[in-house]
């Protein structure tokens, strides 16, 4: 049994200290509660609204119409699946491209401080320029009359009537491009601490470079890979700027576009809310499984 040995003064100081803590935390938490938690609850409620008979467009009454979910899911399951599929491909591509980038800057150029500094600035450069402007730039670079498409047609990689934009390829390339820095930076942060003497030691012990990579480099960078994949997958699954600008046809529509158009063009608030809620819950489930499967305490 423990006895509280603190004096009255100390207890009073402790109390005052905790009051400061509450004062620091409350305003911010209030904002999160009012403008994040409450809106999610309202979104859930709105997804169950029903349309009274003879109502005008955009007129709904609170209700418990669970069939809203069945309606939107039966209509839009392909877009929902496509969003996760595109997000998954982009995440894998970003990892395959991003890992060598991070390794190059963090390990190979460790001695060359100036070059390393320049590449590091270039790595965060995309954050300094507008995301939509860059996506629009891709659209123009890949356009039918553009240099890239013309060259590919000339060397007959692309058929004469083929397109680069308005294809799933363009959308996935755009997603990979836009979220690549989110993959590279966490991996870079982890590889920066990699002790290269470990690689030398494993080489001295006759490990092949592939074995050294699998047994040392990869495990050491695992927290970065883990964070990077989440930071790429989650925003990619909900994105609709890439699919709207680089795709914009039936083969490339992602769920975000559907939610946007049901809110603003079709004025179907319950349907849009139901789809948003499904998207949020599916991502949370996927992320939880992923964390359980691959995450350890130190990753969090």
């Amino acid at each position: 049994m423990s006895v509280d040995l603190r004096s009255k003064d100390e207890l009073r100081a402790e109390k005052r200290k905790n009051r400061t803590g509450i004062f620091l935390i409350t305003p911010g938490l209030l904002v999160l509660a009012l403008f994040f938690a409450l809106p999610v609850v309202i979104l859930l409620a709105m997804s169950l609204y029903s349309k009274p008979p003879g109502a005008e467009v955009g007129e709904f009454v609170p209700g418990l119409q669970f069939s809203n979910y069945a309606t939107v899911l039966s209509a839009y399951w392909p877009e929902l699946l496509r969003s996760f599929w595109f997000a998954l491909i982009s995440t894998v591509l970003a990892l395959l491209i991003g890992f060598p980038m991070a390794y190059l800057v963090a390990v190979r150029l460790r001695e060359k401080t100036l070059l390393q500094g320049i590449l590091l600035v270039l790595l965060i450069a995309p954050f300094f320029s507008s995301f939509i402007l860059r996506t629009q730039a891709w659209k123009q670079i890949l356009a039918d009359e553009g240099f890239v498409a013309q060259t590919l047609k000339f060397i007959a990689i692309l058929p004469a009537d083929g397109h680069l934009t308005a294809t799933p390829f363009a959308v996935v390339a755009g997603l990979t491009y836009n979220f690549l820095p989110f993959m590279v930076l966490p991996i870079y942060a982890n590889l920066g601490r990699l002790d290269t003497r470990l690689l030398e030691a494993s080489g001295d012990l006759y490990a092949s470079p592939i074995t050294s990579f699998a047994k040392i480099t990869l495990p050491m960078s695992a927290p970065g890979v883990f964070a990077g994949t989440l930071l790429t997958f989650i925003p990619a699954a909900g994105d609709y700027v890439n699919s709207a600008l680089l795709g914009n046809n039936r083969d490339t529509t992602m769920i975000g576009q559907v939610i946007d158009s049901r809110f603003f063009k079709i004025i179907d608030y319950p349907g849009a809310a139901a789809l948003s809620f499904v998207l949020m819950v599916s991502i949370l489930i996927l992320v939880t499984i992923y964390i359980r499967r691959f995450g350890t305490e130190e990753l969090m």
Partner: protein
Amino acid sequence: MKQKIGRWLIPVIGGAAFIYLLVPIAYIFVFSFNDGGRANLQWQRFTLDNWMNPCGAPAVCQSLVHSLQIGTVATVIATVLGTGIAIGLVRYKFRFRKLTDVLIILPLATPEVVLGASLLAQFLNLGWELGYGTIVIAHVVFCMSFVIVTVRARVSSLDSRLEEAAADLYASPAAAFWKVTFPLLLPGIIAAALLSFAMSFDDFIITNFNSGAFQTFPKFIYVSATRGIPAQANVIGSAMFIVALLVVVTGQVISYRKKRQLENS
């Protein structure tokens, strides 16, 4: 032989990836000098007119001013509130800790469409008119989580014995905080504020849900994308890029000099 391939593979893939990353930025810069008229889709001829007259296209500058205002206001609020939470969470004990953690992490694991849609549902329910105010609220919410995570890492790595030492030297808790803790946290807070401004300034999806008819810079570009974006947008995009680059490089040089000074003294 195998080793040789490995030696070349990484610089080649890495180098190609850097080109991939920078091509659109170079494209934006090059086309800011294009005399391409309203649409700016095809290269016509070199001109400096767009740079001499960046507000030449109507509505570009107006939307830019809006974005700068919103970015500043949202950043200040998010940084103050987020820093409070970050310090409070690390340094003080209180109940509902798990719940608080969930409340902070969940916005980061929620796609922007859902954040935007849920706030829209809230504003529709409250009957608030969409515009400047609702955009600021939305931006504060998503920026705050990033501020909390960034600053909290800084607070956790701080040696709490420094504050105890200050207290032993008869500094009041307030004096210890402002003279010892705060200056040590400042680089983290500045980094969080810069990140927050960049995210707010560049946000499209959440803004699109909560802005009504109000134009921001990303929204202006998205809306005009179908008709072609005026070259002035490229000028502003390139100018912002150059300014941000200068800020980063200056920051690096200053911290490098300070380090050298500390090592020499």
